């Protein structure tokens, strides 16, 4: 399969803080990749650079055939308004805090960009939006305002909003970490549905290890701006080889609780949706 995302020698600093250095990274079309790693290791930065929310200093990035690099760097193209537009057309992003437009109805949140950017007619955009809303299970919320929805519902609207732009790459930056535990499951269910889409490339930062294991083709372990280890989730999450991965997973999953009671969890679907409590996750991996 062809690569849809390629980072080549990308360097990124915030002032004097070097976050990425000579960073190389490829994602194949349709691949579902999860980025894990300690806080501050640069996971969000990679997504934000892809979404053109952050400039970078050196190297180049190719997304679905459109290459660009920052002014001053050496690469095939300079980023100009046209390139940024082309890249944003292919990439969508979900944020930890949803970032819905609070003054717009749910429907308008979803239709605004299709109408003003893709030049869809309002009727057409409304119809598509309603389909997407029913896909995320919120067909009855079209005329509500974001503040009237729970966090989980807001994130599902945000997913519908991103999908309305028909992106080929969807980025998720900790999409469930601002949610109350009981709302995590409904959002993961929607993302799970998306993961079944062949063509959609997904790049996700999450601490939901169980979920990452279930849906990803590849997991990348970040540490200080570098991918120190990557592989299939069934390998990397279960038998990590790099010491940083071992200690990170140990910290996230809770060390030494691997053998704690499996059965209750498995039987109860509501509990199966819970965020990575040290117990739930560890024993799942132990089982796999």
């Amino acid at each position: 399969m062809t690569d849809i995302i390629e980072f080549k020698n990308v360097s990124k600093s915030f002032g004097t803080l070097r976050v990425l250095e000579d960073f190389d990274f490829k994602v194949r079309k349709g691949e579902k990749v999860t980025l894990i790693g300690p806080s501050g290791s640069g996971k969000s930065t990679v997504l934000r650079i892809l979404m053109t929310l952050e400039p970078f200093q050196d190297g180049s990035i190719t997304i679905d055939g459109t290459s660009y690099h920052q002014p001053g760097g050496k690469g095939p193209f300079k980023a100009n308004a046209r390139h940024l537009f082309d890249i944003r057309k292919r990439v969508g992003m979900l944020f930890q805090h949803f970032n819905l437009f609070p003054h717009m109805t749910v429907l308008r949140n979803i239709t605004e960009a299709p109408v003003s950017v893709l030049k869809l007619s309002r009727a057409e955009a409304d119809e598509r939006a309603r389909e997407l809303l029913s896909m995320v299970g919120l067909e009855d919320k079209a005329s509500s305002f974001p503040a009237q929805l729970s966090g989980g519902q807001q994130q599902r609207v945000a997913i519908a909003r991103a999908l309305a732009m028909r992106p080929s790459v969807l980025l998720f930056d900790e999409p469930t970490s601002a949610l109350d535990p009981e709302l995590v499951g409904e959002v993961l269910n929607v993302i799970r549905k998306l993961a079944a889409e062949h063509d959609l490339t997904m790049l996700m930062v999450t601490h939901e290890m169980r979920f990452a294991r279930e849906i990803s083709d590849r997991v990348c372990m970040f540490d200080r701006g570098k991918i120190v280890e990557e592989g299939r989730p069934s390998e990397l999450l279960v038998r990590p080889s790099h010491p940083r991965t071992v200690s990170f997973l140990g910290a996230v999953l809770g060390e030494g609780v691997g053998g704690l009671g499996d059965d209750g969890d498995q039987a109860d679907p509501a509990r199966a949706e819970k965020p990575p409590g040290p117990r739930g996750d560890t024993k799942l991996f132990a089982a796999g």
Partner: protein
Amino acid sequence: MINDINVDTSSTLSFFLDVLPLLLKGLQVTIAAALLGFAIALVAGLFFAILRQAPTRLISWPVAVFLEFVRDTPLLIQLFFLYYVLPVYGITLPAFMTGAVAIGLQYSGYTAEIYRAGIGAIGRGQWEASTALNLTSGRTYAVVIIPQAIPRVIPALGNCLVGILKETPILSTISVLEMLNLAIIVGDRTYHYTIPLTLAGVLMLLVTSVFAYLVRFIEFTVPKTGIRLR
């Protein structure tokens, strides 16, 4: 109009009854000048606020200097400048218009600052979501940022309006016949200053109270999250 002024000073009541309609006429001019000046300040301030944040310093810098200049020099100087200097270069506006423009420009320095603060109060996430959806920056301002900034700027803009209203007497210096000017003219003619000046003060108080109340009402009516878009 000045020459028509003919008031009966034989009794306090008749004096009062003669002065009142005169001052009410002046009040119309006062309110019209204030509203026009305010409208200019609202529109010009928005342009300045946006240009102030322009990505190139070639634009943002001169705008910043201009805004600093209008805020930090007395309205009277700006007024005289427009009134006496512009005609030298062939630009002649009626005194009333000159006054409204001077007030509008001076206050655009404040409204630009109010807009800047209002826009600055909108979280970074709203900009990022707009970028991720590929909205142009013009569209982002129009449907995402400004509608949400409006409820945040209404109280401060309301104060501006009341401030402008109280500044309009300065137009009497360029011979605009607003309320205070008329009150002084009556006083000069009759040597009775108490009634016209007191009346002018009371009328001003009434108008500013009404405006302040209207601002409160609008503040109350506009949803806190922003102008609703459906």
